[in-house]
């Protein structure tokens, strides 16, 4: 009889059945009210015939006579049933607190042939859950873009949930599911959360499964709850720009690299157009097979600053529009200005061998008055000199002198960060150093790091090389003097100098540039402590101030497009950000999200939520009320016109 039980609704509020007790007074009142109106008529002759005839012809007359009572009883039954809040039990587990994570990354904005975005489809499914919400259930909606954002508190207010859903928009950023899960985890500390529901297209950062070779999304997160992953199907073809880089080919020209990728579901075709300061640099027609990518190179003049705009004009259906445009600011090409005192002959010697480098002070002693791109000095007096990249040799910063002392003993390099930019391909092993930086008594690495330093190379008793960020500038400290080591005589030394030069050129935007992507606008160095007006791509404005170092940073850029920085109406600079995310552009989806220790499969079957029926009962009761009113008011039947 289990099939029978599936047809019997459950009741959330069975106590509402008490309303059935009202049936008794209604019946009593009905019969009390049934005192007939006395009407004197001339003769009963006709009415007696009518009654006799009616008894013969209308076997259901007794029923008809009490039809109003029947309607009233039916109305009360329906109201009582509605008050009992019946519902069809779905296959979803009934949960009291349910966080719903909604992926709002760029790929969720991809449209299908009908023009619906995947976020629209997800919203439609979530609306069903909201409509089927039972009184003891509470939802919270969490939008997961580049970061997680809680849209509502735990609430059973359907209007609040629907409003929040209606306001939800796609962000032109890759998704960060971990952030959303962390937020849900934080909520689970105050509410008992057994399950988190995650609506996504499955377009998550992936890597190939070492066993199967298939792409898998690996999320480094320990789940304190179970995750139901509901996947929204992929909409189809897409083509988009996934990278726009520029590299200085010569002092007079930039090589601009444009990477265009297509979705894995089918072939795509598009026209690629590159403009510099509004002037056409070049265009190209490309056809990509499923999942293919193509790199296109353009030459751009470096004699003046250039504002590049790369645009795709796809042929046929293109699911994602946001990845069809990106921008890049190219500064005017120039030589790198380096300050290096004449005493550091080894460095000067290495620098002068490099092309496009002006080393100061010149032989006549003159210095460049403006900022240096690179400062290499062994004088503590130069610590205050502004430079994009500063390298101090044998100088201990003031704030470190309480933590580290230098003694005349030999030191050796124990370990170093081989992936640090200036130490790439630099072999420090077996370098003999006759100065020994020693951490003072009780000083740990953490104390040094707390002061903003990062240890790049460890000696046997203390740090040897440190880095420190200062806004968009960076300083490196070699706590030993290179002249008192064998480093200048090693192959690694010119490599070290070249690495330093590369970083200086990169920071001066002179060697390699990458188009900014959505998320946060790149930091900009402007006037100190000044307020600027930032115009967003959707036309909205924000007022932002630079800090005491003149840095304007932390501007959220969740929309692809051009951001204008204005000072009192005058355009200061313009920065364009594009999506530039291959995962989002390819619209690749995974059916499994691998968490630490367990994997979550995408649910193919749509969830059947509990369906409340009280609205139907209430609506039916209203109809019965109307019928009763009509029956009570209607003109008696059979009267000839």
């Amino acid at each position, binding site marked *: 009889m289990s099939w029978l039980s599936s047809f019997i609704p459950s009741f959330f509020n069975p106590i509402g059945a008490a309303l059935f007790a009202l049936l008794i007074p209604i019946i009593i009142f009905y019969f009390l009210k*049934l005192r*007939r*109106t*006395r*009407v*004197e*008529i*001339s*003769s*009963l*002759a*006709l*009415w*007696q*015939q*009518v*009654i006799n*005839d*009616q008894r013969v012809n209308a076997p259901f*007359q007794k029923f*008809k*006579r009490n*039809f109003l009572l029947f309607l009233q009883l039916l109305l009360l039954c329906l109201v009582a049933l509605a008050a009992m809040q019946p519902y069809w039990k779905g296959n979803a587990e009934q949960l009291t607190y349910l966080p719903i994570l909604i992926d709002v990354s760029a790929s969720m904005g991809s449209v299908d042939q009908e023009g619906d975005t995947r976020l629209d489809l997800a919203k439609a499914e979530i609306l069903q859950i909201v409509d089927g919400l039972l009184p003891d259930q509470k939802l919270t909606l969490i939008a997961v873009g580049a970061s997680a954002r809680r849209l509502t508190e735990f609430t059973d207010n359907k209007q609040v949930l629907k409003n929040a859903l209606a306001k939800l928009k796609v962000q032109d950023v890759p998704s960060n599911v971990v952030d959303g899960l962390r937020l849900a985890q934080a909520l689970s500390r105050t509410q008992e959360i057994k399950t988190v529901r995650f609506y996504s297209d499955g377009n998550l950062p992936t890597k190939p499964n070492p066993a199967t070779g298939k792409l898998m999304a690996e999320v480094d997160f320990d789940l304190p709850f179970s995750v139901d992953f509901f996947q929204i199907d992929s909409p189809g073809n897409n083509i988009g720009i996934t990278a726009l880089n520029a590299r200085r080919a010569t002092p007079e020209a930039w090589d601009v690299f444009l990477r265009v990728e297509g979705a894995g579901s089918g072939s795509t075709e598009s026209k690629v157009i590159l403009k510099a300061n509004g002037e056409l640099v070049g265009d190209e027609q490309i056809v990509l097979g499923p999942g293919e990518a193509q790199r296109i190179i353009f030459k751009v003049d470096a004699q003046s600053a250039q504002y590049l705009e790369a645009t795709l004009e796809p042929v046929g259906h293109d699911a994602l529009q946001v990845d069809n445009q990106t921008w890049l600011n190219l500064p005017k090409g120039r030589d790198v200005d380096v300050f290096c005192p004449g005493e550091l002959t080894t460095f000067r010697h290495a620098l002068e061998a490099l092309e496009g480098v002006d080393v100061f002070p010149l032989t006549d002693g003159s210095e460049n008055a403006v900022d240096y791109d690179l400062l290499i000095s062994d004088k503590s007096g130069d610590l205050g000199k502004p430079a994009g990249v500063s390298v101090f040799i044998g100088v201990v910063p003031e704030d470190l002198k309480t933590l580290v002392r230098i003694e005349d003993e030999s030191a050796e390099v124990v370990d170093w960060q081989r992936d640090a930019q200036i130490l790439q391909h630099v072999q420090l092993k077996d370098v003999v150093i006759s100065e020994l930086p020693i951490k003072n008594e009780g000083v740990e690495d953490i104390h040094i790091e707390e002061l903003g330093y990062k240890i790049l190379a460890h000696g046997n008793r203390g740090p040897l090389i440190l880095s420190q960020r200062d806004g968009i500038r960076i300083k490196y400290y070699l706590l030993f003097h290179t002249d008192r080591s064998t480093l200048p005589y090693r192959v690694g030394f010119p490599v070290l100098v070249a690495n330093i030069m590369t970083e200086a050129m990169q920071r001066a935007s002179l060697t390699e540039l990458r188009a900014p992507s959505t998320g946060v606008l790149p930091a900009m160095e402007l006037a100190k402590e000044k307020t600027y007006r930032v115009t967003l791509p959707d036309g909205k404005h924000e007022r932002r101030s630079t800090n005491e170092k003149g840095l304007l940073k932390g501007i959220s850029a969740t929309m692809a497009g051009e951001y204008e920085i204005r000072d009192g109406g005058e355009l200061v600079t313009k920065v364009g950000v594009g999506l530039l995310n291959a995962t989002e552009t390819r619209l690749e989806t995974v059916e499994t999200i691998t968490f630490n220790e367990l994997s979550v499969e995408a649910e193919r079957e749509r969830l059947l939520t509990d369906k409340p029926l009280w609205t139907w009962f209430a609506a039916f009761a209203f109809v019965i009320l109307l019928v009763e009113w009509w029956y009570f008011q*209607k*003109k*008696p*039947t*059979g*009267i*000839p016109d």
Partner: protein
Amino acid sequence: MNNMSIAASQFTTLLPNDVLARSERMRLNPMRRRTNRMRGEHMSGKGGTSIEFSDYREYVAGDDIRYVDWNIFSRLNQPYLKLYAHEEEMHVAILLDSSASMEFEGKFDLARQVAASLGVMGLMNVERVSVYTCGQGRGRMPFLKPCSGRSSLKRFFQFLEQTEVGGSIPIEESIEQVLKQHSGKGIAIVISDFLTFGDVSRGFNLLHGAGLEIYGVQVLGPTELNPELAGDMRFVDAESNATLDVSSVGELLGLYHQHRQALEDYLGSQCRKRSGRFIATSSEIPLKELLFDRLLRNGWIR
């Protein structure tokens, strides 16, 4: 103008003067012509002793040879009877239902007016007019003896004006009582609502058998013709005080109309079967319209 002056200027309270005057000029138009022992102004279809020539017909054995036209016989050598129109008086018996059921919605008032008007037509044409008030009680019922001529007008109106409503004797029973008192052929004008549990066919048969042509006038009130009732009711019979509980009256109105129409059709057919006439009317109909339009157009009067 006050009511006193109107009453003073009117010959009777039953009929306005103009209706009375017009009624005096009109006469009843029976379907058949009947003879009576006594002569009157009414033309009889059957030959009679009169000076007004009517027709010739062939002589048949047994005919009174006094009526043979000897001039024709001498010319044609065939005996022909010379026929004369016979003017003789006709009985007009007015059976006015004055049972309690007629009290409703001006039914009795209209019935009295119709009786008065038709009676005036009879009196002014020297018919023998008699009035029987039916339904008031068993035994000898109040009635106006046959009278004729303008001299009887006052008595006639006086009788009608004094007639009151009350009683519960059904009309078919009253007809039988009338026939115990009435003699003479002519017209029986039965004015009633005919709302009876019994069957009028026997009474009509007796009237027909007594040589009276039946003029049936059914007067019903507006609520009887078109009741606007709904809900559960307890109907009380005005005559017998009997009660009848009816639920969902509104639902039964259709059936009621069917039965009312069936009664009307039945009464009409019963009258016509006996060479009579029948008309059903609402008590709200203006008297002039009833008399000088409907009755005139239906050939009741001329």
